[in-house]
């Protein structure tokens, strides 16, 4: 098992740098290490949802209302959220950044978990650009994702591949 070195401070720093106000999320095992750090950050309001498909809709409402949300879910939840991403992301030109826990990502080619195998293929099918974030040296890609979302006025994903197997 490779050692991942993706720490909450780096990620939350990127959210602060991009003036994020709300994190709409459902916990997953790849990004659960962020919870305490987000809770401790007064500039971030957490909006927990029951199912990932809600997250894009809630985030769209927050965006319409003038605040700056980010979505934080797992790739399995992204699969479940297909119609929300279509109708409440792509169709409405919502520059939404989705931080997606990359379950199944092994970085050495052999990917027995189908959640890992299908993730990039599905993003490609939706024509959604994505950035891989594995270590603290990658976190500036989160700002790249926000910049690309603003430029294209379309959803962009950050695949959080910090848990190697």
């Amino acid at each position, binding site marked *: 098992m490779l050692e991942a070195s993706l720490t909450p401070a780096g990620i939350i720093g990127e959210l602060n740098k991009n003036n994020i106000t*709300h994190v*709409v999320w459902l916990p997953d095992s790849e990004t659960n290490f962020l919870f305490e750090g987000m809770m401790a950050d007064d500039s971030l*309001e957490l*909006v*927990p*949802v*029951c*199912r990932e*498909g*809600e997250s*894009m*809709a*809630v*985030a*769209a*409402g*927050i*965006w*319409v*209302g*003038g*605040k700056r*949300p980010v979505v934080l879910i797992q790739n399995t939840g992204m699969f479940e959220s297909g*119609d*929300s991403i279509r*109708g*409440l992301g792509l*169709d*409405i*030109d*919502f520059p939404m950044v989705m931080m997606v826990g990359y379950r199944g990502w092994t970085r050495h080619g052999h990917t027995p978990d189908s959640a890992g195998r299908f993730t990039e293929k599905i993003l490609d099918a939706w024509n959604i650009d994505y950035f891989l974030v594995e270590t603290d040296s990658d976190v500036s890609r989160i700002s790249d994702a926000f910049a690309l979302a603003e430029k294209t006025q379309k959803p962009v994903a950050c695949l959080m591949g910090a848990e190697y197997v």
Partner: protein
Amino acid sequence: MMNQKDALTLIEKIRGDAIVVPTMTGRTTWTEISTDDSVEIPLRGAMGKAASVALGVAIAQPNRKVIIIDGDGSLLMNLGTTVTIGGKKPANLYHFVIDNGVYGVTGGQPIPNANGFSFKGIAESSGYTAGFEFNDLEDFATSLDQVMSTQGPVLISLKVVTELDDSAMTLGTGKSVGQSFQDAKKNLE
């Protein structure tokens, strides 16, 4: 039982500057009677996400009331959102449900367990501040001020006669959903 248009007309009269998120058959009726679409977000076929969108708006705009005109079949597709709303407790959220027991946009097929459960009860047990149920127009008319002065989140089940509406899912009528989002965003700045 009430007529849907009569019930929604009462809501339109007292909406003030509330932001409105209507969906499914309620969207069609609301679009007909609304006198101000500048901060409205009508959703077509959003798989039950109207309440989730409205929750987001309510969180971002805590000083304005947000009204959802939901469908019963629509809300059932995303029923967990009642618990999400109950957890966040937005004081400015008013969740009306067109409760006629059928899928009005697909031909009138019954929703699962039609008349076997209560949206009012679901709301109350999910953490809403209050739940109401009305099946008489006069009763609804005399209670509406009290409903809207109750701190949210509040769910109001409107027992209405079945009206089928196969236009609710069609594209090309009125503003696109995307344009409605963009207009509402601009007008809320």
